[in-house]
């Protein structure tokens, strides 16, 4: 502010005037002196000098008008006049401000999210060179460790490649135990990223010597600060992870949160260590694809060249290893779990950004027509100013100043609100059980975009009345009054603006309805289980130090003892909760297969390990055959329960009991068939699924399902007490199954909420737009209506001529918007389950909404047109 003030002071108007006056004065004095020397009387000399010089004031005005310094001055005057004008019409100002706050605010929020999720790179050196290596088929983003090693060693386009995966486990010290999320990373991870330790050291490739050879962990700065009080003496001490000893060797810098934007680990450990594994050779299994691979491109190498390079290696690997026959490579931007979350999130955010922009455009269209009407109402004032000698440019600049003032003010307020919202969003932790940090705090880029949007929209809607200024014929206006200059043309720019606005609004309303309907469908979709009334107690038995036979014993005791609690109707265990953290899929083969290359497989199926009683506890319907018993143990013949789709796909019949298939190179007999269900997400294409007895499919993940009629508040303490008696050292996470499902429904909920808000904003804008236009055209034609009533026009005729145009615009805009909405629905269906615009309820809902909006918006104008009193109107003027 002070710099601006200084400029204004230095070149202020008065100083400039003084200088010019002094110069002119000197000029005149020289002329007078010459005149006197030529023999004139002093008086005559003076008069002559004045005449020769011409109009002094005009000259001075022309000079100051040119000066840049006075441009500031003029701007100041324009702005203060604009502020006075706006204060004089608070209704217009408030309407415009609210419209802008909503329009710009929505954009800033959406851009803030886009900025932090898509545009902001990982906080490491040279982030632009980093790419995740994933498969070409979307949804299959992980590579196996041997494939990663081959890619890393054989490529010529990457300077280095690191691998990581996200695990959870229990970290315990002598005094405390924590349930943690951590990354298991290849030894070169930190070296490749170029991150330096804040304390101690990092591990390197040279530390890796086969399975469990590098028992080191690096703590995250946050974990170190919260749980170890930022004590540097922690370096070099031992902690237990899943009851195995590890040495803390370092702490990461505060700004480094791993290579996923939203999953911040508590610590890092070398991939060669596996606290979940009990001595198997997990480093050489080419078939188990569970790593994210991150590569840094060599300088000058394009992603396309690198992809070709990797695909050539993949073809070579496929020749050598049958299991790799489908291997290929694609590069995606890192940070959002490769393409798993990144793909849909990017397309959804792009979609929402477009919608938000459309809302702003609709807002600008709305303001433009509002402003144009206001300018038309002020045509007499404009005419007087032009008649008094103001230039058209000056008058236009004045109007533009008003538009800009409102826009910048509205933009500032909108940005303020969005900043508050974004900061709230950043603090919000939707799922306490996951280490999800949504950092969407606005940075300078966001503020810059906000300013740009404000100025842009100000210019956009401030320019519309320019035509009016240039078209004003002052003599004509002064003679006939404002109404006389208003020509109702057949089709004006403002009609187009309103039509566009209504089409956009209908589009947004359609999207909201589609999303809401899809949401409703998802909540009532057949899941293949009944989550109501089920309590989940989740744990990882490895955290309690259970391995091998101990796992089986503790599980059986848990089921039996919890089953004895009064009020519990059934209990069971599954290793991975369906629609929870996931669940793996694997290829199955027909009976008699001996060559287990992927192309010989029947299909891929989801697999789960379950205990006897799980099906009953989960409420999954058994269609044929039997449930497992505790006798189906490791020594018994291998058996499986499959879902209906599995049976149909492999045997062509739902009744597959007694049939056999091969999985993991071993034959299984099907003893039961259950209903189909949802396993990964609500929008998934139906999966074939198979269930195995827990003991025939060893795994430490344990989700205890307790079905009871009692409310959770009563049953949780009981279950907690019973489980603590079974094993005091085992950490459990309790939640009801419907609560746990919130995670799966989260994207759909967010999408629905976002679209709902956008739809609401658009609907408000459409109402104000139609209302404004109808009201304005009625108010301008009151005199005409008065005459028509006086000569006997019927009410319907009046309404027809007053509201025909808004209604036609509303109808045509709605039809266009609905068509656009139907097209956009295809896109929505990817995010919101069963979202389809071809739903009579959706189409009907949109039509009714638009009709209601139209009715609301035209009701008052129609009343006003009907209430015309010819006599009083004709007396006016």
């Amino acid at each position: 502010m002070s710099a601006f003030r200084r400029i204004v002071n230095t070149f202020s108007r008065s100083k400039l005037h003084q200088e010019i006056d002094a110069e002119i004065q000197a000029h005149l004095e020289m002329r007078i002196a010459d005149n006197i020397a030529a023999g004139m009387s002093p008086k005559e000399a003076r008069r002559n000098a004045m005449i020769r010089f011409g109009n002094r004031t005009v000259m001075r005005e022309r000079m100051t008008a040119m000066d840049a310094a006075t441009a500031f001055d003029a701007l100041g005057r324009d702005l203060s006049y604009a502020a006075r004008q706006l204060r004089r019409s608070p209704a217009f100002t408030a309407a415009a401000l609210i419209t802008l706050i909503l329009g710009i605010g929505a954009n800033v929020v959406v851009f803030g999210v886009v900025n932090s999720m898509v545009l902001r790179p990982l906080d490491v050196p040279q982030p632009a060179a980093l790419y995740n290596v994933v498969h070409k088929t979307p949804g299959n983003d992980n590579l196996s460790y041997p494939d990663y090693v081959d890619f890393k060693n054989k490529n010529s386009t990457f300077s280095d490649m690191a691998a990581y995966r996200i695990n959870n486990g229990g970290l315990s010290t002598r005094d405390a135990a924590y349930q943690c999320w951590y990354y298991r990373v290849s030894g070169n991870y930190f070296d490749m990223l170029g991150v330096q330790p804040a304390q101690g050291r990092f591990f390197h490739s040279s530390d890796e010597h086969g399975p469990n050879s590098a028992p080191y962990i690096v703590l995250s700065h946050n974990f170190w600060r919260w749980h170890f009080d930022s004590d540097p003496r922690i370096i070099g001490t031992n902690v237990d992870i899943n009851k195995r000893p590890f040495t803390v060797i370092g702490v990461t810098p505060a700004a480094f949160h791993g290579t996923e934007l939203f999953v911040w680990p508590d610590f890092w450990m070398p991939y060669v260590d596996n606290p979940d594994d009990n001595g198997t050779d997990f480093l050489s299994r080419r078939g188990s694809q569970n790593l994210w691979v991150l590569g840094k491109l060599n300088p000058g190498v394009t992603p396309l060249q690198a992809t070709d390079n990797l695909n050539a290696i993949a073809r070579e690997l496929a020749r050598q290893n049958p299991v790799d026959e489908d291997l290929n490579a694609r590069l995606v931007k890192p940070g959002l779990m490769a393409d798993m979350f990144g793909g849909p999130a990017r397309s959804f955010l792009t979609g929402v950004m477009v919608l938000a922009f459309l809302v702003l455009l609709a807002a600008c269209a709305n303001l433009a027509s509002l402003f144009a009407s206001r300018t038309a109402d002020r045509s007499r004032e404009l005419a007087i100013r032009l008649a008094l000698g103001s230039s058209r440019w000056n008058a236009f600049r004045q109007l533009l100043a008003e538009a800009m003032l409102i826009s910048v003010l509205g933009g500032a307020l909108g940005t303020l609100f969005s900043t508050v919202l974004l900061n709230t969003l950043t603090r919000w932790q939707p799922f306490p059980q996951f280490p999800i940090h949504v950092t969407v705090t606005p940075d300078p880029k966001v503020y810059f975009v906000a300013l740009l949007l404000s100025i842009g929209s100000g210019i956009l809607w401030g320019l519309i009345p320019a035509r009016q200024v240039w078209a004003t014929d002052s003599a004509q206006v002064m003679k006939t009054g404002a109404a006389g200059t208003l020509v109702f043309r057949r089709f004006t720019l403002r009609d187009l603006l309103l039509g566009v606005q209504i089409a956009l609004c209908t589009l947004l309303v359609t999207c909201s309805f589609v999303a809401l309907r899809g949401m409703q469908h998802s909540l009532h979709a057949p899941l293949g289980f009944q989550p109501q009334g089920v309590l989940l107690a989740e744990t990882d038995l490895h955290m309690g130090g259970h391995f091998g036979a101990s796992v089986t014993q503790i599980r059986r005791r848990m089921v039996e003892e919890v089953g004895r609690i009064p009020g519990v109707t059934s209990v069971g265990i599954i290793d991975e909760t369906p629609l929870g953290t996931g669940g793996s899929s694997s290829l199955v083969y027909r009976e008699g297969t001996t060559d287990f290359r992927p192309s010989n497989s029947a299909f891929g199926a989801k697999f789960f390990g379950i205990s006897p009683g799980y099906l009953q506890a989960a409420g999954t319907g058994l269609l044929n055959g039997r449930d497992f018993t505790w006798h189906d143990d490791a020594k018994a013949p291998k058996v499986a329960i499959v879902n209906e789709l599995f049976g149909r796909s492999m045997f062509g019949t739902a009744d597959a009991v007694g049939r056999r298939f091969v999985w993991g190179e071993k034959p299984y007999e099907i003893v039961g068939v259950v209903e189909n269900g949802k396993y990964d997400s609500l929008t998934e294409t139906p999966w074939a699924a198979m269930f195995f007895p827990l003991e025939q499919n060893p795994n430490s993940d344990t989700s205890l399902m307790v079905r009871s009629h009692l409310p959770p508040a009563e049953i949780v303490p009981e279950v907690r007490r019973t489980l603590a008696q079974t094993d005091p050292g085992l950490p459990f996470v309790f939640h009801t199954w419907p609560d746990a499902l919130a995670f799966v429904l989260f994207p759909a909920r967010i999408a629905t909420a976002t679209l709902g808000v956008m739809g609401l904003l658009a609907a408000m804008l459409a109402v104000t737009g139609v209302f404004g236009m109808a009201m304005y055209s009625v108010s301008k034609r009151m005199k005409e209506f008065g005459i028509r009533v006086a000569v006997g026009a019927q009410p319907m005729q009046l309404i027809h001529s007053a509201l025909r145009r808004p209604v036609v615009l509303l109808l045509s805009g709605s039809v266009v918007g609905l068509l656009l909405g139907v097209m956009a629905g295809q896109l929505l269906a990817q995010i919101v389950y069963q979202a389809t615009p071809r739903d009579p309820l959706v189409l009907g809902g949109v039509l009714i909404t638009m009709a209601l909006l139209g009715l609301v918006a035209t009701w008052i104008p129609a009343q006003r047109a009907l209430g015309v009193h010819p006599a009083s109107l004709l007396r006016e003027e």
Partner: protein
Amino acid sequence: MARNDLQGTLDLLVLKTLSQMGELHVYGIVLHIQRASEELLSVEEGSLYPALHRMEMSGWICSAWKVTETNRKAKVYRLTPAGQKELQSVEKSFEQLVKGIRAILRYA
């Protein structure tokens, strides 16, 4: 052709004057134009001020306060290199204008 208007002509007169005389105040410029044109051209003296101001803002001339021989404080103007260039181009276009007008006059 757009620059071949009267304002262009005034610019030409001022620039030419300054290039011939070096430093001059406005009154001096007026006197020079009258004298050099043998009293044929007389400009409204005040109208030179906006013109000079504009040329100064365009960077063709620069100004400074000086004391004249008659011991009076006056603002004097001088041509800048940019003004020198401008003068050449204005002169050229003026000659074209003159040629054009002469051609029309001959034809009539």
